[in-house]
């Protein structure tokens, strides 16, 4: 039997209630394997102004490249206490911060490996559908061969690549539209 999908609606401005209970800005408790990283994702509107009332979620593999999910059936280690999900609201400066470990590379269905990446969902007042994008790491092995980046026109690929500042924090500005519009994916 075919049923019609439930349509999407905006998260609105007043999500504090439930969503904060499931906030996980720190994904990796002590003991989880991998390189510790800090992410700072900033959210911007079409004019470049910050969006201080957004919600960002991340989903990632662990450092071994394994997703903590039953459909990832590969024989790779799972890390105790690491699910790979994070959620944070953007702050008064439009930034959502996460502390996690760098994900390992995961396979591509047609063969080969994808470059290390974090999957990102964007929600905000004025955003009617979840916007999906990715965060890659500047200077990483595999960026040039990444099958997803290669689906994107070359001039726009940099919108998906986080850069490291002097303190070691990985920054990725997410532009909802305008001249610096981020590449969003139909997942």
């Amino acid at each position, binding site marked *: 039997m075919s049923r019609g999908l439930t349509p999407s609606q905006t998260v609105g401005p007043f999500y504090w209630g439930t969503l904060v209970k499931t906030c996980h800005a720190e994904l990796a408790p002590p003991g989880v394997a991998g390189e510790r990283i800090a992410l700072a994702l900033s959210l911007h509107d079409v004019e470049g102004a910050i969006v201080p009332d957004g919600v960002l979620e991340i989903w990632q593999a662990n450092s071994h490249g394994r997703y903590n999910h039953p459909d990832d059936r590969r024989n790779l280690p799972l890390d105790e206490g690491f699910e790979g999900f994070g959620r944070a609201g953007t702050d008064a400066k439009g930034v959502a911060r996460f502390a996690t470990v760098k994900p390992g590379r995961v*396979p591509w269905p047609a063969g080969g490996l994808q470059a290390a990446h974090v999957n990102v969902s964007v929600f905000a007042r004025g955003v009617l559908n979840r916007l999906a994008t990715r965060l890659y790491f500047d200077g990483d092995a595999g960026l040039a061969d990444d099958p997803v980046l290669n689906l994107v026109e070359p001039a726009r690929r940099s919108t998906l690549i986080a850069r490291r500042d002097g303190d070691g924090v990985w920054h990725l500005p997410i532009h909802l539209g305008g001249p610096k519009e981020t590449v969003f994916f139909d997942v």
Partner: protein
Amino acid sequence: MNEETYRRPSAGQHPPNRFDAYKSTPGRSPGKPAVVLPHSLSEITGPLLQAERLDGLENDLTRQRMAEPLGERIIVHGRVLDEDGRAVPNALVEIWQCNAAGRYHHPGDQHDAPLDPNFYGGGRTRADAEGGYRFVTIKPGAYPWKNHHNAWRPAHIHFSLFGPAFATRQITQMYFPNDPLLAFDPIYKSVPEGARERLQAAFDMDSTQPEWALAYRFDIVLRGRNATPME
């Protein structure tokens, strides 16, 4: 790999990103089409949040404080299904809403209506093996917003669904049947006709509890899987 992929929604089921009558959308919507992504493990896996500890009262928004909140007590229940009618078991369901007077327990809500110290407005539950979920809450009020002159949001409850995969992640809003404000609400009307009606819960006389609460049924349908495994 033999993992299944998820079907792409056909046209006309979700709102467009830009819907000018909802005035926040032009400044916050992409102008370029989304890049279609073939499904890899990154899209067919997703947070199941099985380790999330839910306290027993999180699905009863009338019993989270010292006393019962003011307002009309209601039961909101339904099933989380996929497009093929199969249950999405154990799905985390999150809701949030304003109080009976139309005011959110949120510092950004400055609507001139009373806060209710006994109503926080957030709830969570986990669907059962058949995808069934149930909340007890109070009926939210309508509230004004500044989208246009004399704009009022119809009474609604916000829903957040994870489903089984990153690809199925979704946030939506549940409305009450035949609310006269629906005809004037650009957020509801951003969804094409023929699909938007699915956002109205059904009044459910059979599930009411005599002498206690009326009931509404809201089934949630997430993307179904493709029948053929990916290469």
